[in-house]
């Protein structure tokens, strides 16, 4: 299938302005009827663009790497552990953290729509919501991982979590080798968004720019 956004950008050049007009019409009607306040819409957009994003998740992961008690709490009851961490915004129920180990690699998908721990990691990338990812990750996760440049040992067990209800999953990736003694903040710089979805691995120290 032609990738969704490419279809719009390349084949229907006028569609962006058509969409701008259509969405403006919906917003105008709902504002006039008292359902929404445009200032609120501005703030929602701004919050997603500047306040909620993968950096919040990276801080949680880095804390779990340096603090065994926090890690235990996170794996036991993630929503509560994130609330006690306190340095990221409010994260709701029902967050579940799953740990990668040398024997087990976790990967998260929503085959039915786009469920994602949005209040922790921000809005999902286009590929997470796309048909190729949703269709194949439950059946051929190694093939999907290869497209992300991730090649796991053949013996590593792969566990795919399909987010079919209002539970949300955060992958706790393995701490890279060669980071002994690193400060939490520096470790957070190694945690990529994709490593918390399970389609990537954390940046290794030697890969840092």
């Amino acid at each position, binding site marked *: 299938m032609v990738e969704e956004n490419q279809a719009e950008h390349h084949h229907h050049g006028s569609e962006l302005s058509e969409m701008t007009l259509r969405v403006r019409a*919906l917003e105008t009607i709902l504002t006039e009827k008292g359902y929404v306040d445009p*200032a609120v819409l501005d703030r929602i*957009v701004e919050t997603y663009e500047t306040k909620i994003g993968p950096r919040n998740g990276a801080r949680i992961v880095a804390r779990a790497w340096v603090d065994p008690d926090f890690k235990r709490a996170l794996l036991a009851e993630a929503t509560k552990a994130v609330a006690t961490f306190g340095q990221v915004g409010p994260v709701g129920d029902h967050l579940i953290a799953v740990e990668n180990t040398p024997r087990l690699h976790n990967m998260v998908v929503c085959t039915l729509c786009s469920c994602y721990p949005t209040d922790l990691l921000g809005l999902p990338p286009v590929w997470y919501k796309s048909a190729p990812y949703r269709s194949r990750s439950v059946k051929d996760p190694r093939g999907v991982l290869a497209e992300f440049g991730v090649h796991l040992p053949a013996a590593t067990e*792969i*566990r795919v979590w399909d987010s079919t209800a209002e539970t949300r999953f955060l992958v706790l990736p393995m701490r890279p080798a060669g980071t002994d003694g690193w400060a939490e903040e520096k470790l957070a710089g190694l945690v990529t968004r994709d490593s918390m979805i399970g389609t990537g691995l954390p940046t290794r120290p030697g890969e840092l720019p």
Partner: protein
Amino acid sequence: MNGVHDMGGMDGFGKVEPEANEPVFHAPWEGRVMALMRAMGAAGAWNLDMFRDAREHQPAAYYLMSSYYKSWAKSIETLMLGRGIASGDEIEAGHARTGLAAANDKMLEPAGVRSALKRGTYARPARASARFAIGSRVSVKNMHPATHTRLPRYARGHIGTVEGIHGCHVFPDSSARGLGEDPQWLYTVVFDGRELWGADADPTLRVSIEAFEPYLESA
């Protein structure tokens, strides 16, 4: 419903193509669509399950060929029409012809945005004890409702193991139809890859779904 949205295990969609340095929104209207959806949810105009149901009922070709937020905009329009919030004439004109009968006191205020973007809880008090326990072998029902469900097709008819119990949650199959929350026990059910995909499946693969109790039977 057995819609094209239920994609798990389908072939033919091509490669996953991650975009480097992807922006949060690819055009300003996408952000407005996301914000409208969140604000209307907070105002109680419809629930999450109704929104998903509206999107799933889009014609299959439209669903596949529309970008995510274009499809969302269509869902918002569908719900505005279907729930009597606006008329087709109004959407055509881009303006309200009639206002609300009463002021909407649930309208989201700027100060409430940050907490509105925190996920709400869908857990509800249990009305009965859980039928299954951790470790229970369960068979997923062979069911094909024409209405909204969160049971993916690829799991139906297969046998798995209960690995987690998350309490009772709002039952989307009921909530999407405006029939109330009808809370049901929610489980993580894990399947061996070969149980789902046959002998050729990756032998190291296990897949789990989040399954509501009415989807399951004792195996």
